[in-house]
C-alpha cells in the first residue's frame, strides 16, 4: 500500500480553446442572434418564436439572450439512446464517445467488383449487418441513399433495412414530416408502443439547419413532429467554411454556434425537455480550388474540436465525425484522415460520432473503410483508457523479484494483465516472414475479406413476424399513397 495516495486514473484529453475564448465566442454568437438574426421559413415556428418574445424584422428573427438562457435550462444534459430492445446503450454526455456510420451517400464502392456505383437497398442491409457485428461501432446510420427504391420514400426503405438488420441504436434521416411520421410508426411497431419508444428511444432523427443561419420549412416541420413526441433529435449545423460561413476559425464557429443555439430554442419551444444532440456539427472546409467540402482539412478538424468545446461549455451532447476522408478509394489517404479523425474526436470528447466509412467527402461509402476504421476505433478506445496508477499496476514486487537482466514474460503479474493489451484483427502485427507466409495481404484486402465474411455469415437477431408485418404495412400504405399522387 506504499503508493495508495497515487491511486489515480487519468484520461488523455485535448483542449483547443481557453475559457476566455469560449466566453468571447458565446458573446459573439449572441450578437449574431440579436443583431443579424436568423431566417425561419416556417410560419408555425416563426409564430412560436414571436410569441416567446423574439423580435420579427421582415424575414429575420432576432433572439434575445434570455431566451437562449431559457432553452439551455430546458434541454436535457443527460441523453440516453437505447438499443432495439430498449436497453440503455449510449449515455451521450461528458466525454463518453460512441461511434457509428454516416448516412445518405449516393455512391458506394462495390464490395465484390471494387467499382464505384450508385448505392442500392442491399448496401444498406449489408452495412447494417456489418455494423451490427463490428464490436467498436455503437450505432448505425444508413450510409447509402438507395437508388433502386422509389426516391420519394427511400428513407422509409432505409429505416426498414436498418431496423431489420441491427439491434444497435439508429440515427436516421427523413425526407419530410409525413415520411418522418411513417418512420416513427415503424419504430413504434418495433418498440411495441409509442410509450415504450418515448421512454426507451432506440432512434434519433438527424436534421440540420441550412447555412448560413436558415431554419428551413422542411426542417422546422420535421422538428415539430419529433419534438412534440419528445423523441431524440440531432440538430447540428453543416456549413462549408469560406462559402457558407466566414473562412476564419472564430467567425465560422460563431455562425455554427448561432445555428446551434437558435435551433435549440426552436426545439425547446415546441416541447421543453426534448432531448437534442445539439453540440458539434459539420464545418467542412471549402477547398478554394476544387470547390469540394473537405472532410480531411485540418481547419475542419480544429473547427470541430472548437465547436465540441462550445457544446461542452453549454453542457450539450455533441455530434462528431470520425473515419471519414476526401480520398476516392480506400487508400493511404483514407486511412490517415480517417484515423486522425478517430483520435481527435475521442481526445476532444465528442459523444455521438458518425460518418465512419465515408470517402469522397461524404459522397461514397466504402466497406473497407468501415472495417479499417472499426479497428482504429478499437485501438483508440484502448488508448483513451488512460493510465491507471495503483499498487497493482506499479508492480513494485514484480520488478523487485525479476531484478536487473531478468524477464517478465512468465511472471504472474504479466499473466494477469497482458490480455488487457489491445490486439489487432486486420492490422498487421506479425513479422515479415509470417506476413509473407500468410499471403502478404494489404490492410484493404484484409478489411474487405472481413467485411465479406461478416456480411455472408453474421445473422442479426431478427424482428418478430408481427413487427415485420407491421413495418411492411406502413411501407405498403406509403407506396399506395405515392401511386395515388402519381
Amino acid at each position, binding site marked *: 500500500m506504499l503508493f495508495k495516495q497515487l491511486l489515480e486514473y487519468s484520461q488523455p484529453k485535448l483542449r483547443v480553446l481557453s475559457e476566455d475564448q469560449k466566453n468571447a465566442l458565446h458573446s459573439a454568437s449572441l450578437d449574431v442572434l440579436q443583431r443579424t438574426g436568423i431566417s425561419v421559413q416556417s410560419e408555425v415556428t416563426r409564430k412560436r418564436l414571436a410569441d416567446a418574445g423574439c423580435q420579427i424584422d421582415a424575414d429575420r428573427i432576432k433572439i434575445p439572450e434570455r431566451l437562449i438562457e431559457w432553452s439551455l435550462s430546458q434541454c436535457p444534459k443527460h441523453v440516453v439512446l437505447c438499443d432495439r430492445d430498449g436497453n440503455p446503450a449510449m449515455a451521450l454526455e461528458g466525454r463518453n464517445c460512441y461511434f457509428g456510420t454516416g448516412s445518405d451517400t449516393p455512391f458506394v464502392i462495390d464490395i465484390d467488383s471494387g467499382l464505384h456505383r450508385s448505392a442500392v437497398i442491399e448496401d444498406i442491409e449489408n452495412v447494417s449487418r456489418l455494423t451490427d457485428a463490428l464490436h467498436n461501432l455503437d450505432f448505425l446510420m444508413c450510409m447509402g441513399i438507395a437508388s433502386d427504391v422509389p426516391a420519394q420514400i427511400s428513407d422509409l426503405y432505409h429505416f426498414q433495412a436498418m431496423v431489420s438488420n441491427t439491434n444497435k441504436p439508429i440515427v436516421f434521416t427523413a425526407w419530410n414530416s409525413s415520411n418522418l411520421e411513417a418512420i416513427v410508426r415503424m419504430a413504434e411497431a418495433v418498440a411495441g408502443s409509442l410509450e415504450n419508444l418515448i421512454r426507451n428511444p432506440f432512434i434519433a432523427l438527424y436534421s440540420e439547419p441550412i447555412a448560413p443561419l436558415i431554419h428551413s420549412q422542411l426542417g422546422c416541420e420535421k422538428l415539430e413532429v419529433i419534438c412534440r413526441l419528445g423523441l431524440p433529435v440531432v440538430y447540428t449545423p453543416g456549413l462549408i467554411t469560406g462559402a457558407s460561413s466566414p473562412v476564419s476559425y472564430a467567425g465560422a464557429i460563431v455562425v455554427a454556434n448561432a445555428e446551434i443555439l437558435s435551433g435549440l430554442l426552436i426545439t425547446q419551444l415546441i416541447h421543453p425537455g426534448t432531448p437534442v444532440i445539439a453540440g458539434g456539427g459539420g464545418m467542412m472546409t471549402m477547398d478554394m480550388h476544387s470547390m469540394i467540402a473537405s472532410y480531411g482539412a485540418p481547419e475542419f478538424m480544429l473547427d470541430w474540436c472548437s465547436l465540441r468545446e462550445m457544446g461542452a461549455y453549454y453542457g450539450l451532447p455533441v455530434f462528431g465525425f470520425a473515419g471519414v476522408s476526401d480520398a476516392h478509394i480506400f487508400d493511404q489517404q483514407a486511412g490517415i484522415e480517417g484515423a486522425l479523425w478517430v483520435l481527435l474526436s475521442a481526445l476532444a470528447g465528442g459523444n455521438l460520432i458518425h460518418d465512419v466509412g465515408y470517402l469522397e467527402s461524404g459522397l461514397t461509402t466504402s466497406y473497407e473503410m468501415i472495417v479499417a476504421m472499426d479497428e482504429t476505433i478499437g485501438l483508440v478506445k484502448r488508448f483513451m483508457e488512460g493510465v491507471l496508477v495503483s499498487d497493482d499496476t506499479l508492480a513494485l514486487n514484480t520488478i523487485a523479484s525479476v531484478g536487473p537482466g531478468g524477464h517478465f*514474460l*512468465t511472471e504472474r503479474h*504479466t*499473466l494477469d494483465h*497482458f*490480455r488487457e493489451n489491445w490486439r489487432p484483427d486486420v492490422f498487421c502485427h506479425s513479422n515479415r*516472414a*509470417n506476413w509473407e507466409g500468410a499471403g502478404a495481404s494489404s490492410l484493404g484486402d484484409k478489411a474487405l475479406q472481413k467485411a465479406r465474411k461478416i456480411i455472408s455469415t453474421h445473422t442479426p437477431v431478427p424482428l418478430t413476424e408481427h413487427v415485420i408485418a407491421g413495418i411492411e404495412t406502413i411501407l405498403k400504405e406509403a407506396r399506395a399513397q405515392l401511386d395515388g399522387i402519381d
Partner: protein
Amino acid sequence: MKDEYEMIFKAVIEGDVEGVDKLVRDALNGGAKSGDILNQGLIRAMDEVGNRFERGDFFVPEMLISAKAMKTGLAILRPYLVEAGVASVGRVIIGTIKGDLHDIGKNLVTMMLEGGGFEVIDLGTDVAPEKFASAVREYSPDIVGMSALLTTTMVQMKNAIEAIDDLGLRDQVKVIIGGAPVTQGYAEKIGADGYAPDAIKAVNLAKSILRSTG
C-alpha cells in the same frame, strides 16, 4: 487414457509448475513408464498448447509458463528416459553472439525449445565465437542456436560458424540463427543451416532439421 496422465496434461496446460512436479513424481512412484508419462502427459499437453496458440486462444506468456511446467516434468523424467532407452528430442546449445547483451529473444527461443522437449544449454549473452566452438566439443549438441539484435554484432555469427569448422565439428552439428535484423538470405550467405523469424518457428525449424538428418 489413465487419470494420472490426464492430470499431468491439464497441469502443463494450466502452467502449474508445482503440480507437474508432484504429479510426475507420483506417477513414477506408482509405476508408470517414463515414456508414457512423456508422450501421453507432457508432449500431448504441449501439442494442445501449440494448437491453442495457433487458434489465438493462448499467447506467449501462457505458452512459456506451460513450457516451464513441461521442462520441470522432463527434468524429473530424464534419467528414467535414459535408462529406458527413450531417445531425447534433441540437445541445443544457444547464446547471444559476442558484443550483444540483448537476450529476450534468445530466452524466448530457449523456453519454447524446452517446451518442445529439447534439452537446452544456455551459454548466455556476449558469447564469443570460440566459446560456441568449444561448447560444441564439450556438449555434442544436435543444434547450435545463435541470436543477434544488432547489425554490428550479426557478423560474429559467421565467425562462430568458422570457429566450429576450425575444430572440425561443423558436420556434426546444425547451426540455426535468428534475431530482428537476421533474414533467411543472411543465414544462407554465412552458411547457417536455418533461420526462423520467431520463437515458435524456431522450435518447428529445430524439429524439422533433426527429422531430415534422422
